[in-house]
């Protein structure tokens, strides 16, 4: 490949400064984060009393957010590992997007768990006195492991790109140059280095799949090992994993569209990518729908007395509007949009992706809260507000702040590092040209 084409790729994919839109975006997210921090300050000062969580609903939107973050983080393993191991070449431009979504989501999953604690300064007790028999400890271990593996999976493919970035010293500015040098000055494009990196990425791609499955299965077991209506299910592991793949893929489609549009990456994130990711989304939505049918139809068919109130609450009662909203926005409508070729064009696919992500957040809320409002023993002699859960502004602000924080991490990453791997793109373009040549 000639130098001109290579330079063009580098130029196109080189991290860009925030424009006017980018600055507004960053300021908006920072304000949301600041409000969240203020609300958390109030929570620290006054205690969990500022939330609407009480004796029965002790897991509110913080834990819904946690499950959502863990779910969306699984996309790293789907796009990077599963597609890499199955030798799917078209996913190359999407790998880094998927990995940074995974890293930022898992970071905020860990943070939101601490937020949910009434006395976060006692967090260390979890390590000092935690029981190996408890799924909470499994979750702590597996989240830490997944975070490290995701970081490594982000870092290894970044090494060749760092060498390219370091070459543009004047363009980078002092701090960025220092960062690039610190992270990758030792990369010399030596064949031995490539050999080690390729091997490491392959090992990571294999290792991350069971860890990713564990992280969300263990999260599902936090619920399923508790004997309560709506959680007492053997289907929960698979149900959570399928839902996680769906929301993760939806998140990637949304990010693809935003980056493509903002950084003008139409040449690299093509309509073909949206078409393929659209098909992946349909498959995952159908899979998740299948597990939803299993999760709700079988208990509804039996309608055990102890579960009746919970199930009717979801189907026709207090939570019915959210339940049907989540089912339609996370599954039916995206399937309907993406089944058609025109629906897999960038804009409709983006809309479908947004619907999946939004619907999936509410789905996580429905997994956590309604069950807590329907204990086996009836609620007696409790204040009226114990029978309902309406999050306070502090909870919304903190949850919103954490979501904005995750988006900020992704935004700053895209500002500092190439969101599409430069080196791999050059190699793939070269290989395409060679194929054409022969």
């Amino acid at each position, binding site marked *: 490949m000639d130098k001109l084409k290579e330079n063009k790729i580098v130029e196109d994919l080189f991290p860009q400064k925030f424009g006017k839109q980018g600055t507004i975006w960053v300021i908006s997210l920072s304000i949301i984060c600041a409000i969240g921090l203020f609300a958390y300050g109030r929570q620290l000062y006054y205690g969990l009393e500022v939330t609407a969580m009480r004796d029965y609903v002790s897991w509110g939107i913080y834990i819904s957010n946690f499950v959502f973050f863990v779910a969306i983080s699984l996309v790293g393993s789907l796009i990077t590992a599963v597609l890499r191991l199955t030798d799917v070449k078209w996913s190359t431009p999407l790998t880094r997007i998927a990995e940074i979504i995974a890293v930022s989501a898992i970071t905020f999953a860990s943070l939101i768990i601490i937020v949910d604690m009434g006395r976060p300064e006692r967090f260390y007790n979890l390590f000092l006195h935690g029981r*190996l*028999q408890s799924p909470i400890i499994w979750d702590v271990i597996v989240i830490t*492991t997944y975070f490290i593996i995701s970081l490594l999976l982000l870092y290894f493919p970044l090494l060749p790109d760092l060498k390219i970035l370091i070459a543009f010293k004047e363009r980078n500015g002092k701090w960025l140059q220092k960062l690039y040098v610190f992270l990758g000055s030792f990369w010399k494009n030596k064949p*031995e280095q490539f050999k*080690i990196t390729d091997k*490491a990425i392959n*090992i*990571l791609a294999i290792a991350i799949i069971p860890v990713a499955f564990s992280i969300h299965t263990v999260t599902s077991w936090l619920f399923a090992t508790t004997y309560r209506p709506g959680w007492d299910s053997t289907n929960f592991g698979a149900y959570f994993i399928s839902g996680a793949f769906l929301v993760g893929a939806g998140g990637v489609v949304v990010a693809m569209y935003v980056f493509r549009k903002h950084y003008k990456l139409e040449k690299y994130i093509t309509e073909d990518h949206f078409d393929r990711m659209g098909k992946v989304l349909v498959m995952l939505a159908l899979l998740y729908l299948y597990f939803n049918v299993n999760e709700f139809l079988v208990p509804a068919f039996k309608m055990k007395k102890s579960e009746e109130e919970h199930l009717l609450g979801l189907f026709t009662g207090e939570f019915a509007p959210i339940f049907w909203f989540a089912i339609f926005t996370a599954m039916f409508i995206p399937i309907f949009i993406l089944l058609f070729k025109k629906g897999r064009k960038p804009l409709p696919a983006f809309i479908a992706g947004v619907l999946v992500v939004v619907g999936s957040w509410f789905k996580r809320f429905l997994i956590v809260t309604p069950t807590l409002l329907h204990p086996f023993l009836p609620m007696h002699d409790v204040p009226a507000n114990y029978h309902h859960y309406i999050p306070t502004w502090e909870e919304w602000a903190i949850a919103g702040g954490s979501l904005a924080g995750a988006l900020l991490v992704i935004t700053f990453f895209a500002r500092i590092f190439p969101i599409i791997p430069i080196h791999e793109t050059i190699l793939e373009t070269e290989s395409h040209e060679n194929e054409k040549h022969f």
Partner: protein
Amino acid sequence: MKMKNIFKTVLFLLGFIPTFLNAQAVEKKILVLGVKYYNDNNISQHLIIQAKSKIDGKFQKIGNIPVKVFINNENDKNNFIGTGTTTERGELLLLVPASAKTEWSKSNNQTFVATSTATTLYDEARGELAITKAKLKIDTIDGKMVHAKLLVLIDSTWKPMVGIEMVLTVKRLGGNLNISETATYTTDTAGAVTGEFKRENLPGDNKGNLVLVANVIDNDIYGNLSAETTVPWGSKLIYSTNYNHRSLFARRGHSPFWLEFLAYGIILAVWVVIIYLVLQIKKIVKLGLE
């Protein structure tokens, strides 16, 4: 015409005023006070005052009723033995205090009087219970035979009383269990009953001790009497705990071996891979510096 109609309507409504005013005066209900006497193992005595009222055709227990209790004469403040308010279950438990000893010693027959003043819902009430002083004794004879005797104070002498029903039980899990299939016993001419203890291998304390109880229950003349004695007829309680056992529900550091093996095995396997990969970075760095 219109004014005439309004006038008629006002007159019609005024007609209801007396009915409305009458409705304001709530009719107070009749309150019944019941008194029960208990002699506990000849050591202490207590009374239970029960407040009841007929609501919807049924007697219901009434709580929050202030009650004063006297011995023999409610008009003499020296005979006042206590006061209190009935609980939600309509009961007031009152220990007979040492201050009542002088009055208690005056006669073989005693009357306990409970009074309550009128409240917003209930009329004033009075209840009384007359009892004759009696006591129960319990002992064992010939192996596992339980022997109880009822004595009544007549002319300053304790004399046996014939034909009184009582039960012989053993304390078990917060209740009383009959010592055999015989539900009740009747005192003979010596005022005694004898029953065979047939509860073999009943768990006792760590020395195998059981508490035998003889009870006269709700007797019209003597009230409720009880006597207890401890016998080593039970099986010894051997304390065992699974606190230190390894199980899924045990404390930290006591998880089952299979779980520890599995969990630590998996953690180790994954972290060995991670450490290996971190070492590969070191290798890449070294190659770059060569």
